[in-house]
């Protein structure tokens, strides 16, 4: 085990030179994706980037802080419709995206209050109530949801020599990249330590000086901010919005992504997002089978690989590092 020698080394995200090569190689391969694949693949990759943002937020809440929330569809809807209304008012998309995140963050902060008193399944039910309530409100109020026509949103224009798919691809690549970096930094900061302490033993965390109130609410707010930004990205990508996109099944998508990808692993969130996007695409002929696959995947992962897809990768790396001695 290599020991960390200095503080600057502690702060580095990538510690080994070879890991750096791997990571940059991978980033480059993804960056050049449009040059060697079709537009359909590029579109799927764009969706993966979009979902990565939300799953990262969900992982911060479930994986790192240990607070179970089933209200993600609600935050997604709030983010998406905030973005939709603002962009119809003519607000530029970048500003609207931030506003979508902030609006969802505010609601996340409010929904976080039950978490101060409730734990585990009770909290799950309380947040589930929020998610369902938001859907009902949007479904039943034409002012908010744009009525039967839904909201129509101005999509991006083609940028420079890129076509439509490629423009979205690069924009979402950059946004997802920023959120991945942000998450790595949150996790390794004092804030991340506080989240982990609350997850593992909240009484000990309190005794050691971590304010449960502050950090639980902060976790909810940050997580909802992520999901809200994803809602804005969804609206921008699709170009229209209707309440039916934000049913309870959307929440399940997040949960599957977090568990299958790996709890409390940033890389896991990316893999989990990819899983949730790619499986329905592969099974587009058998749409009914998708929830079934999700259920089986969760059970198998929890039994055989509690660390998820990213955990599998970790174990593989460890195996090759020790090879051929173990």
């Amino acid at each position, binding site marked *: 085990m290599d020991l960390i020698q200095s503080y600057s080394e502690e702060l580095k995200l990538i510690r080994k030179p070879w890991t750096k090569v791997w990571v940059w190689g991978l980033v480059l391969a993804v960056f050049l994706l449009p040059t060697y694949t079709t537009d359909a693949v590029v579109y799927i990759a764009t969706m993966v980037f979009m979902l990565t943002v939300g799953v990262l937020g969900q992982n911060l809440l479930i994986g790192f802080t240990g607070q179970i929330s089933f209200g993600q569809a609600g935050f997604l809807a709030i983010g998406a419709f905030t973005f939709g209304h603002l962009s119809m008012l003519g607000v530029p998309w970048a500003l609207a995206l931030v506003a979508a995140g902030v609006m969802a963050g505010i609601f996340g902060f409010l929904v976080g209050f039950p978490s101060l008193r409730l734990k585990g399944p009770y909290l799950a039910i309380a947040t589930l109530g929020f998610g369902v309530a938001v859907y009902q409100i949007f479904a039943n109020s034409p002012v908010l949801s744009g009525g039967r026509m839904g909201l129509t949103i101005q999509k991006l224009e083609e940028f420079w020599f890129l076509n439509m798919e490629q423009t979205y691809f690069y924009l979402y690549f950059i946004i997802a990249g920023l959120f991945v970096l942000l998450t790595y930094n949150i996790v390794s900061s004092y804030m991340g330590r506080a989240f982990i302490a609350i997850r*593992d033993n909240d009484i000990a965390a309190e005794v050691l*000086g971590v304010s449960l109130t502050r950090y639980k609410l902060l976790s909810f707010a940050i997580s909802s901010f992520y999901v809200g930004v994803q809602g804005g990205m969804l609206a921008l990508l699709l170009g229209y919005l209707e309440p039916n996109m934000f049913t309870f099944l959307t929440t399940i998508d997040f949960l599957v992504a977090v568990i299958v990808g790996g709890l409390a692993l940033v890389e896991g969130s990316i893999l989990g997002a990819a899983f949730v996007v790619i499986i329905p695409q592969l099974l587009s002929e058998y749409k009914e089978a998708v929830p079934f696959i999700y259920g089986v995947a969760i059970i198998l992962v929890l039994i055989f690989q509690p660390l998820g897809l990213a955990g599998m990768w970790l174990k593989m790396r460890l195996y090759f590092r020790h090879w051929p001695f173990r």
Partner: protein
Amino acid sequence: MSQVAETGREQLAADKPPLLKIANIETLYFDRIYALHGLTLTIREKEIFAVLGPNGAGKTTLLKTVAGLLKDQPNKGTIEFEGRRIHRLAPERISGRGIVFVPEDRGLFRELTVKENLEIGCWGRRGKEVKDDLEFVYELFPILAERGEQQAETLSGGQQQMLAIARALLRRPKLLMLDEPSLGLAPLVARSVYDALVKIAEIGTTILLVEQNAKLAFSIADYGYIMEAGRIVLEGTSAELQENEDVQELYLGLGGDEDSSKGWRLYKKRRTW
């Protein structure tokens, strides 16, 4: 007896200012069950205090009340630390004042490694002092440096207790409160934990100890309190308490040369004390 205790206490009180002053506190569970019933207790700086008592006397409740872990408690009475009121403050603010509580189950972050546990112990602190404190802790418990990368839940009971104490020390406590540090430990291991406590007291940390194992507690404590049914019924220096007949009979297991039920009958009789 009580007069001796009084004079001894007055002498000591004259030497050192009180660090923690608990006056007439009442703690209730579910708004109706009294766990602490008008308890008064004073803790002076740089000494080791032991609180003894039978099961259900409210020892753990006392520590939890001081640490602020029981919401809206104490119901009545005041707790002062260094002359400032701390009752009904949030636990993290009490911890910030310098009172650190090591719970009975040790409160480790079980899934994290020993090193990560200690890192969270340093949470919110910065500067060079942290490094010095870490070195002190590793010097006190060399086994923790050895087991740095091991998951906390895979440690043995004694090592877990050492880790819990080490993590608490990294908060630089003025008052360290320990709930049954010898619980579930083999006598030799418990002894080594207690030896470490003596060393911690030597650097100027005040220790408040709750313990069932009276012999062990008296071996390091300067002053003892005996609790029963939510009150302090007896107090005195460790030597005085060890000579007290009731304490010998009920806590140290001495003087029980007649049939064993005598102790229990005496206990019943003296419940009122």
